[in-house]
């Protein structure tokens, strides 16, 4: 392009440049305008909520369902009114609920059978608690199928989500059965189930399954022990480290430090496999010993049907319990469907479905007293005797120590091999 000797060409060139710049500006400007109102918006009122909304977010009935109706036009069964409202919305969006976690498969099946007019839209079963929070934040104004209605997160995420204004309060009919230590008094979040950490062992690959944390250090388990997640990011993995520390007899924050030391030892001995364990890595023998929630381990055994056999050993020393909580998103596109879901989860049917997945439903003690737990289900749940139920503050304290200390104390990150 010999433009140097061509003044007209030069002018044209400048005109093109100007045009290009204007175009670019236009594109960027329109983008900025689009996202301008974006970032932090006031929570939208539940938009499409139909007229017959379930009155009062507190349903103070003592017994489930069929009691006297609360105000307005609700017929004899308040659940029916809620169902109508939910039907109008037509869809429920859940997130982070794998079918083989506490047998959510049965929970979903039961819910769909009972309320067939509501389409259940399941998002991202592999999500972690942080993912769920991010999903709410990212979809604040989105009425579409990407926005979760309900979340199931680790205990510590309840209060933080409430603080960030991401969840809305709702008290289910069976509210009083939930222990106070596992719920927010105003109804923003509420415990749903719990379990204890155990050793998930592939018995085809490991002749002598370990029973205590101290066992894991033995040479026979060389290259076999793994966590179920990244101790810098996963709730279960952090609690595993803490539990190892607790098994040495230490308590509280000292136990967190002791846990780090334990894993340093484990790694130095060559017993620690530095990957994210899951049911597959256990099943093929890549991580034949994994520290995970008892319910995952036991359900894995059922699903594998003996190919191979999975043993679930709950240690007596350092047994730690983990509680998860439910909450409804403040920006839920289908708030009534969300409430209906909660009612189902906390009904006997929902609670027992979780129990069939080897999880302790949060209303267990109340249900046991009322005699609504079938004997065979009660029998297959592992003992939680001696299990440590940490409070939120204790968890946060231990979390801080472990996430900070892991890279330096245990130092398991991958580096280039020395030349």
């Amino acid at each position, binding site marked *: 392009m010999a433009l140097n000797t061509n003044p007209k060409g030069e002018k044209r060139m400048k005109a093109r440049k100007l045009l290009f710049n204007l175009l670019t500006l236009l594109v960027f400007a329109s983008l900025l305008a689009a996202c301008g109102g974006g970032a932090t918006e006031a929570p939208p009122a539940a938009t499409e909520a139909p007229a017959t909304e379930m009155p009062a977010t507190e349903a103070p009935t003592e017994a489930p369902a069929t009691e006297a109706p609360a105000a307005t036009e609700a017929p004899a069964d308040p659940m029916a009114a809620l169902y109508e409202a939910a039907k109008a919305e037509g869809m429920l969006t859940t997130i982070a609920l794998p079918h083989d976690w506490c047998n959510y498969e049965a929970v979903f099946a039961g819910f769909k059978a009972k309320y067939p007019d509501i389409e259940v*839209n399941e*998002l991202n079963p*592999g999500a972690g608690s942080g993912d769920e929070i991010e999903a709410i934040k*990212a979809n604040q104004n*989105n009425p579409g*199928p990407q926005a979760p209605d309900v979340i199931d997160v680790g205990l510590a995420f309840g209060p933080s989500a409430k603080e960030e204004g991401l969840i809305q309060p709702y008290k289910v009919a069976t509210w009083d059965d939930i222990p106070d230590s596992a719920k927010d008094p105003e109804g923003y979040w509420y415990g749903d189930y719990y379990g204890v950490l155990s050793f998930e062992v592939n018995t085809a690959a490991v002749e002598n399954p370990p029973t205590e944390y101290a066992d894991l250090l033995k040479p026979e388990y060389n290259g076999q022990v793994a966590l179920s997640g990244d101790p810098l990011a996963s709730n279960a993995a952090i609690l595993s480290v803490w539990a190892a520390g607790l098994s040495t007899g230490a308590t509280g924050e000292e136990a967190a430090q002791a846990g780090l030391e334990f894993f340093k030892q484990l790694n130095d001995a060559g017993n620690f496999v530095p990957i994210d364990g899951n*049911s597959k890595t256990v099943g093929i023998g890549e991580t034949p010993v994994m520290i995970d929630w008892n319910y995952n381990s036991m359900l894995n055994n059922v699903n594998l049907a003996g190919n191979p056999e999975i043993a679930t050993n709950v240690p007596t020393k350092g047994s730690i319990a983990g509680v998860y909580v439910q909450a409804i998103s403040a920006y839920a596109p289908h708030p009534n469907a969300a409430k209906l879901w909660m009612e189902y989860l906390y009904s006997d049917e929902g609670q027992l479905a979780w129990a069939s997945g080897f999880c302790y439903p949060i209303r267990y003690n109340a249900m046991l007293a009322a005699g609504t737990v079938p004997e065979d289900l009660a029998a297959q749940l592992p003992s939680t005797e001696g299990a440590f139920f940490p409070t939120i503050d204790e968890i946060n304290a231990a979390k801080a120590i472990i996430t900070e200390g892991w890279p330096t104390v245990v130092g398991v990150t991958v580096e280039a091999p020395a030349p």
Partner: protein
Amino acid sequence: MTTTPASAASATVTVQHPVTRKRLSSWLIFGVVSLYFLIPLGATFYWSLRGTKDVLGFEAYRKLFADTNFLPAFSQSIVNAIAAIFLSLLIVVPTAYWVTLRLPKLRSIVEFIALLPFVIPAVVLVFGIILLYSRPPLLWTATYNSSRVVLICIYVALSFPYMFRSVDNGLRAIDVRALTEAAQSLGANWPTILLQVIFPNLRTALLSGALLTFAIVIGELTIALYMAQHTLGPYMSDLTRSKVYEPSAMAIVAFAITWAAMGLIQLVTGGQAQTTAGH
């Protein structure tokens, strides 16, 4: 080797030796590299046969096909892929052409943009997209199908690095200027030049780009997941998390079907791949 005027007999004799040696070393290289690629596949296949305890069988495959979610997810992914390929070709070829021929100053910017998909982590990209297009005036995520269109557009953007690089390489290989000049002097207008002169000469490049785009889309996970789309990626991921043997069966099946799709694409573009050019 050299074409000296020698008798036919001696010419063939002297010519054969180096050619055979070259062919031998070609096969050797090909063989070694093939091994590298085939062994992990073989291992996967072996594990997929272990669905029943202590016996090698196809139980895992049976379970896979019994799952009602598998084939719909797969077909959705294939349709998405084809749509993305079409759109990407339509956008990238003229762009590469114009940048090469008329707007060389834009090259750096276009190259940079074309490589952006690599450095924007998928999770960040999808969150950005949702934030941008989940509210008026650009409410594009309200329904499953509209979200699907957005997904396809994202895939087009993700294909830019591969498509642009392939097309660019292809354009370098043909003398674009001369071709354009010749076509222009014959009176062709721009659409004609593009469609009837440039596109056909870029067959190999377009094929490469299309194959790579297909590869990206078919198993893509993160974006489909957050856009709440029921495609193959999320399906595979779910399977992998919970099952032990079915994922391997799935990988093999996906492999086979993708192979078939690739073969089809090659056929449609005229099987250009047979001819070899210079030496």
